[in-house]
């Protein structure tokens, strides 16, 4: 039971990014989703450090120390991009001006609670960054994550056990096994990876799953897993 690969997960999330949206992408898989936004959809990617309209990564020759995203990556600007300071950038986030944020996560609860910032690493200091602002205030909060931990423990839970990022915020989850909405009744499976049964999915989840009447198979193209 393998599910879809990480590039396919990013691809699948990207399909739901709508034309004209302002989108904030967390590090890792969410940023990768940015590369798979379908052609013809005009999207502004926001970075917490104030860039409104991130373009592709800069080539080594074009790289500029001052033109970076929140992950310190040297980027370019898309046409129509602008840049504001941190106060204005977070005013924009908190004020509900980000249409969707796509975040990584450790755990999501059936009521939409999100835990994505603190794994309780005993040796490391805490790092919250803009995660709480984005999770609490973006109009839609989507998560991309593996359906279970490496040890096989479920990440979809009745209640999160790790420290929360924000309460009742997640609206959609893209995993290697399914696409799941969070609704009042809990987890609603919309799509399921090829070859996975509903029973198998439930067995890998820590809270009851509802299945949409029109629940279908995730239709992702073949995409080689990046190294």
């Amino acid at each position: 039971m393998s599910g879809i690969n990480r590039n396919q997960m990013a691809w699948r999330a990207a399909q739901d990014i709508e034309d004209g949206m302002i989108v904030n992408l967390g590090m890792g898989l969410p940023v990768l989703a940015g590369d798979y936004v379908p052609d013809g959809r005009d999207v502004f990617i926001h970075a917490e450090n104030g860039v409104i309209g991130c373009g592709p990564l800069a080539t080594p020759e074009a790289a500029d120390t001052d033109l970076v995203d929140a992950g310190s990556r040297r980027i370019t600007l898309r046409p129509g991009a602008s840049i504001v300071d941190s106060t204005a950038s977070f005013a924009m986030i908190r004020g509900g001006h980000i249409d969707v944020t796509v975040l990584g996560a450790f755990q999501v609860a059936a009521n939409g609670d999100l835990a994505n910032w603190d794994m309780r690493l005993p040796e490391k200091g805490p790092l919250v960054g803009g995660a709480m602002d984005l999770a609490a205030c973006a109009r839609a909060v989507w998560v991309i994550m593996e359906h279970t931990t490496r040890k096989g423990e479920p990440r979809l839970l009745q209640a999160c056990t790790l420290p929360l990022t924000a309460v009742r915020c997640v609206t959609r989850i893209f995993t290697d096994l399914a696409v799941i909405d969070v609704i009042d009744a809990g987890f609603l499976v919309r799509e399921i990876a090829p070859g996975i049964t509903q029973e198998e999915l439930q067995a890998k989840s820590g809270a009851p799953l509802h299945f949409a009447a029109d629940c279908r198979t995730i239709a992702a193209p073949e995409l080689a897993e990046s190294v």
Partner: protein
Amino acid sequence: MPIDKRVAAAAAAMDGVRDGAVVLISGFGGAGFPNVLIRALCERGLRDLTLVVNSATHRYSVTHELIEAGQVRKVVCSAARGHAKGLSAFEERWKKGEIELECLPQGSFAEKIRAGGAGIPAFYTPVGFGTELAAGKETRRFGDRDYVLETAITGDLALIRADRADRYGNLAFRYAQANFGPAMATAARLSVAEVRIIEDAPLAQPDIQLAGAFIDRVVAVGDMP
């Protein structure tokens, strides 16, 4: 006497800063770190500093030099984790209880500093509600949502980096260089900017992103090393 905020050397720009100072330091995502000023502060050999800085440790910043020198009592930040495999200088001292840590959501961190410069003693934000970062903080419901009360941050010294300045302390930033700098400059008693270049003529009005009114001293340091 014509206003002139230019200072020849970074060391002189630190005049008057004392033990126990609350120091606001700009920089985020790799841009806008006032590294020349941080080193000048370090060379003063002060004690018990509180650093208000987005990252306790960042690979493009030299705040770790202040921490390694044992000059820091407390850090207020949104990111307290080093990039390297091992413990950062901050993490090591924090684990030993030698440095106090206040970790804040980044937007609350920014807004608290903005509030400090804007005469707002406290404000409500939805961010952090229901999380351990809001533990012990006052909460209140407005409409159908719960909010956390956050209070203002002010400082004794702000160290920020910009691209260009003039004698009046007016500043222009490049790309994402501004980040926390403009807010920090408004929230500190003494605000110092390092810039690539100080122009002889006043900056043109549309180019000015932070009014010199908020800057006390400006030092030209050339390009980032």
